[in-house]
């Protein structure tokens, strides 16, 4: 007979037995009010309910267990004398008895699940019982059950794959007398995994005369290779836990794994113990022991209430967990607390309302400029002073409004902990993620939009950048690859870097590929920078093997497009053999910028101020050259007049605005310099999006439209132009 058949048989026994018990129960209930001594009858009623509940549990009949549990609790109170027999009580219990009978008969008919209609009746019956239960507040039972459940959930937290454990076991002296054979537990332990090392410790055994053959003297030091969690392993020694010393620690080589797990825990619990339990490094029992110890210690030196020994210290002393793991949990705890503190000081605001405010301030800036312009024309000193003060305030309001949208980029970075962990598992590489500059603040909308390109860069770096462990060892690097995410502010930009210590870009391969694709001519002389920049061209991929992560030839160009859409730029720095860094430059904000107005012909042009290094007069000897001598440096020039096809009379003297982007300088040749102003960026209509060199437009104080120059594109343009000329 199969196991299932046997269980079905047992279920029949259960229904017969339960119906018999219910009959007894009913009889006893009916006779309770006859005035005789009720103790024995109450006992048997209780036992009947107790047995039915216990047996129902064996068959997973949870609805019967749940219902009978309440009945049993009530009977327990009756048995303990906390309740007395009354006609009302009997009247409430009898239908419960019938209800259990109904449930059991349903089981006999093959209905193993709760029937909703029947459940409803059951609920009503239980409500009637509550009348008797609630004054006594039988919360104990309820909380006990709830506790159990939460424990079960908590213990399901972290898990270590193929973890290795060190067990240090010293069995209590009475173990043998108690029938708890240490070697029997160890034999059982082998069903959880493989014992890779075991040492029997018998030094505690006294000389022959004093040695009591019934006392246990042995201990064991065991290394266990097992997929089981710490609480499972601890469960093996459940019966001897109180009398023995059972220490289970991750082997030193596994500590890093636990630290990683702790770092990736969700931030919903800030208790040290809970963090450790979730990571699987600590079991609930160990924590409870340590908490008790803490209480005992505190009671011991009652005079000194402040000096409560930290729980982490106790855990390490008890060898429940190693110091580095506790440290990681402490760091995590601090991080959670910091974040919580930050949260508590902040108000959540709908992003739309914020955007609306910024829009309005933008309009205010424009209107303010208009007022200022009129004031200047009027030449009324008092008015000029008033508008000057107003402009200063408007500027401050603008800055603070923009500050509202600034968020630290750390949150976005931290999300990559998980990505890196998952992807490295997928790729079978060991990769550490190092994050720095997480405090760097950037506009919220930029943060939202940079996430995708960043993900692509990170995956790309892990997939193609960082080599396999074997290759790394061959190249004399540590087997673990390192991926860095870094952010910092530079020249009004936020710079985000994704670096790896992998193989770096292969210059020659990229050159070859670029030739193949017809992107360059065979005899072009290109700098490393220029060649590396090819990887951002559409359809360009040097990946040898195509994985499902990256390497399908789409990607880097999309990254570049996404970044460009944010008015940013991306550059790559790479050293063959030692790694690459992808560097993204982004503006701090998208809405309002400080800028510098220039005039070419009748057109007014706006250049973002943070890109401008200086303004100088154009030396008269430059002529039509595309470069000039800037204090001994070659400065490539952009003639804006022909570039934008602007007509009108050329002035005698021209000026050069020296700009810099991503470390490259260029000079824009303009007619006149108009001065600084605040510019609210208005996007260009769809019609103009293909126009290169223009980032947007703005409305001037006098109502005229001015174009905002796209410095990165223009710098790029002049650089390429010079490359083809030489």
């Amino acid at each position, binding site marked *: 007979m199969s196991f299932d058949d046997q269980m079905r048989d047992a279920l029949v026994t259960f229904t017969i037995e339960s119906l018999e018990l219910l009959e007894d129960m009913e009889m006893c209930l009916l006779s309770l009010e006859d005035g005789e001594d009720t103790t024995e009858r109450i006992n048997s009623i209780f036992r009947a309910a107790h047995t039915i509940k216990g047996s129902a549990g064996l068959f997973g009949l949870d609805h019967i267990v749940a219902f009978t549990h309440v009945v049993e609790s009530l009977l327990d109170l009756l048995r303990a004398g906390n309740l007395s027999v009354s006609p009302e009580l009997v009247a409430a219990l009898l239908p419960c008895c019938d209800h259990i009978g109904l449930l059991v008969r349903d089981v006999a008919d093959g209905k193993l699940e709760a029937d909703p209609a029947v459940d409803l009746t059951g609920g009503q019956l239980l409500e009637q019982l509550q009348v008797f239960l609630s004054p006594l507040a039988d919360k104990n039972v309820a909380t*006990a059950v709830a506790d159990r459940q939460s424990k079960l959930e908590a213990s399901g937290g972290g898990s270590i794959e193929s973890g290795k454990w060190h067990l240090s076991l010293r069995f209590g002296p009475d173990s*043998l007398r*108690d029938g708890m054979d240490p070697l029997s537990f160890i034999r059982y332990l082998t069903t959880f995994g493989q014992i890779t090392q075991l040492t029997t410790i018998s030094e505690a055994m006294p000389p022959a005369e004093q040695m009591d053959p019934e006392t246990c003297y042995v201990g064991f030091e065991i290394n266990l290779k097992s997929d089981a969690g710490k609480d499972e392993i601890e469960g093996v020694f459940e019966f001897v836990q109180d009398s023995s010393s059972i220490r289970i620690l991750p082997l030193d080589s596994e500590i890093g794994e636990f630290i990683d797990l702790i770092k990736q825990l969700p931030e919903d619990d800030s208790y040290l113990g809970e963090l450790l339990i979730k990571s699987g490094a600590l079991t609930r029992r160990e924590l409870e022991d340590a908490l008790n110890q803490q209480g005992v210690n505190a009671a011991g030196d009652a005079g000194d209430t402040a000096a409560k020994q930290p729980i982490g210290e106790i855990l390490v002393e008890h060898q429940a967990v190693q110091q580095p793991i506790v440290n990681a949990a402490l760091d995590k705890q601090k991080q959670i607390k910091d974040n919580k503190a930050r949260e508590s000081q902040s108000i959540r605001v709908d992003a739309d309302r914020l955007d609306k405010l910024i829009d309005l301030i933008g309009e205010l800036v424009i209107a303010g400029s208009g007022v200022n312009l009129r004031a200047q024309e009027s030449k009324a000193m008092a008015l000029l002073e008033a508008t000057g003060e107003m402009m200063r305030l408007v500027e401050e309001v603008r800055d603070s409004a923009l500050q509202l949208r600034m968020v630290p980029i750390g949150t976005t970075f931290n999300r990559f902990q998980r990505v890196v962990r998952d992807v490295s598992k997928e790729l079978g590489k060991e990769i550490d993620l190092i994050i720095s500059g997480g405090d760097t603040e950037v506009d919220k909308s930029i943060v939202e939009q940079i996430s995708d390109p960043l993900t692509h860069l990170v995956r790309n770096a892990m997939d193609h950048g960082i080599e396999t462990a074997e290759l790394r060892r061959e190249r004399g690097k540590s087997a673990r690859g390192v991926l860095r995410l870094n952010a910092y502010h530079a020249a009004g930009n936020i710079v985000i870097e994704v670096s790896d210590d992998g193989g770096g870009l292969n210059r020659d391969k990229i050159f070859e590929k670029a030739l193949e694709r017809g992107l360059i001519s065979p005899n072009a002389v290109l700098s490393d920078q220029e060649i590396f920049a090819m990887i951002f061209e559409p359809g360009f991929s040097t990946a040898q093997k195509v994985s499902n992560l990256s390497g399908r030839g789409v990607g880097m160009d999309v990254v570049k497009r996404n970044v460009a859409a944010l008015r940013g730029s991306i550059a790559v720095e790479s050293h063959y053999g030692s790694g690459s860094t992808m560097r993204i430059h982004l503006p701090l904000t998208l809405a309002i910028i400080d800028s510098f107005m220039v005039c070419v012909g009748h057109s007014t042009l706006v250049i973002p101020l943070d890109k401008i290094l200086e303004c100088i007069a154009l030396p008269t000897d430059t002529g039509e050259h595309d470069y000039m001598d800037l204090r001994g440096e070659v400065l490539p020039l952009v003639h804006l007049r022909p570039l934008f096809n602007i007509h009108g009379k050329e002035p005698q003297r021209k000026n050069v605005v020296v700009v810099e982007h991503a470390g490259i300088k260029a000079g824009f040749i303009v007619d006149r310099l108009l001065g600084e102003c605040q510019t609210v960026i208005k996007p260009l209509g769809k019609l103009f999006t293909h126009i290169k060199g223009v980032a947007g437009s703005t409305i001037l104080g006098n109502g005229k439209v001015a174009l905002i120059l796209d410095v990165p594109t223009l710098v790029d343009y002049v650089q390429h132009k010079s490359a083809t000329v030489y």
Partner: protein
Amino acid sequence: MAKTILIVDDSASIRQVVKIALTSGGYDVIEAVDGKDALGKLDGQKIHLIISDVNMPNMDGISFVREAKQLPAYKFTPVIMLTTESQEAKKQAGQAAGAKAWVVKPFQPAQMLAAVSKLILP
């Protein structure tokens, strides 16, 4: 030679499930319906492990274990007490009487087999 286990419980279905679980693990199982019945069963043969319920008519589990532990042949025999989660006090009483192991009701057959396997070989 398979080891023999005595299950003492007044519920026939619990006895049956325990028997099914342990037999599947290679143990021999004999049954007793209460403490009195169980004491009688101890005489006839060598029993390697005892599983006992607490709440039983005639003789409850605690008294039974206390008496069994007085017998020289069962002085060191491992005893598993069947408890319910609300019976912490009973568990303590059981431990004092000599039942150092326990299984909490309701249990799955596999849990019972695991508890026994920790203590003795089949």
